[in-house]
């Protein structure tokens, strides 16, 4: 992983999930999986964050909050939708208050679709989002091991 020259900081927001994914995201940071060994820190401030991790679907009330948080993050930024609910609405898609996945509001780079994601793929996704990023070519470039914005 020598190409990593920057430790991305994450910000986590619970859309309207059942908490299952939230606690698994937090579990990534705690000793067993220990995402922090890569210097990845869970920050509460969108202005400090590089990776926006959202769990759960989007409803009317949290739509502006997700959008607002995303807009406050500095470029370059990556959005990771953790869980099937964040991906498409999941089992809650038929609920009257669920609009759908996170991509209804903001562009998503990485999807981690599972009803209760094991921390391992979430870990991979959040520690190396640029590798999996769909928009990799457009927004992130690696030049001599340095990640810069285009």
């Amino acid at each position: 992983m020598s190409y990593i020259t920057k430790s991305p900081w994450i910000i986590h927001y619970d859309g309207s999930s059942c908490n299952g994914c939230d606690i698994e995201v937090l579990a990534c940071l705690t000793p067993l999986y220990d995402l922090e060994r890569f210097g990845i820190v869970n920050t509460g401030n969108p202005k400090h964050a590089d990776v926006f991790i959202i769990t759960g679907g989007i409803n009317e009330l949290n739509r502006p909050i997700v959008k607002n948080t995303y807009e406050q993050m500095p470029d370059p930024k990556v959005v990771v939708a953790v869980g099937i609910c964040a991906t498409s609405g999941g089992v809650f898609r038929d609920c009257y208050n669920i609009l759908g996945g996170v991509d209804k509001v903001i562009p998503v780079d990485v999807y981690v679709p599972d009803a209760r994601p094991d921390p391992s793929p979430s870990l991979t996704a959040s520690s190396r989002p640029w590798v999996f990023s769909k928009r990799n070519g457009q927004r992130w470039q690696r030049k001599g091991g340095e990640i810069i914005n285009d």
Partner: protein
Amino acid sequence: MGNRIVVPFGPPQHPVLPEPIHLDLVLEDERVVEAVPTIGYVHRGLEKLVEKRDFQDYVFIAERICGICSFTHSVTYCNAIEHIMGIEVPPRAQFIRTIWMEYSRMHSHLLWLGLAADAMGFENLFMNAWRLREEILDDMEATTGGRVIQGSCKVGGIRRDIGDEKLGEMVDHLKKIRPLLEESNRIFTHDQTVRHRMRGGLGTLTKEEAWDLGAVGPTARGSGCDMDVRSSGYSAYGGTRVQTGHPPPHGGLSGSLPRPLGRGARSSRPRRTCGGKDARRPCRRKGEGQSGWRVLCLLRTAPPWRVHALHKGQRQEEHRPPPVRTPTLTNIPPLVKMLAGIDLADVPVVVLTIDPCIGCAER
């Protein structure tokens, strides 16, 4: 005395809260005069979803009311259906359900203790609690296949058995975890940082207030109310000796600390309820534990007649949503009471003492 200002706490994204809740704090200088909560950011509408789902499928939806106490929700829903349909669940299934519920409770307690430590800024203790939680989750994953959402409960029983050999291993594992939990508890009860952060009756709720405001679970027990739904003997709890109440607060500690302590202290007991012998042989067992708090509300507030409507051969459109009332929702009025009169800087700690599970509360 300064002018009153309103400070939004958690708009609703907030560093201390893993889940979104919004509190408008009316401040006079640094002191909170009043807190006005706003919920609805996690509302999905799960109760209404029952109209679109078969009751056997809804077990899995019920489980996703909350990802932390998930197994308990599925058991509660199954209990309601079994009660209505008159299905008798085999004793072994009852016991294994109870084992999983106890495991759920242990991991839920540790999760919450960790988050409470995190709210105090005690990062090390947070990490330690979550490390211990992983030990519990290992057994959960080995027996159900899922870490947080198990999907192991069904109407009439369970979907997976636990072998006798595995039960023995689980007992051995619990014995190993016990000293670690006790050490963690000792930090919660004796460490100066924690004691200092909880000083001076922070967020105290009297017994009368707790009762009047409808506090349940540890929030009620922290105030001295004797309340534990497991003493009603549902599932296999009938054969267990459930200890309710709290250990007396340690000298000089008052206020909201008994809430974390109560859960912590009881969590340290090895769950002999989950013991191999016990599960094989439904008899009077040694079982200790404290909470059952999440179940409480579901059991109490999913009145059979409501769910009954589901099974009278009605058309799908006529199905009624089962009303679910979870502990966080009922603990919000006590929280508002606790927040009045404390300093702004203490708000995160006090909010975390009720174990705010917004996913449950809003569904």
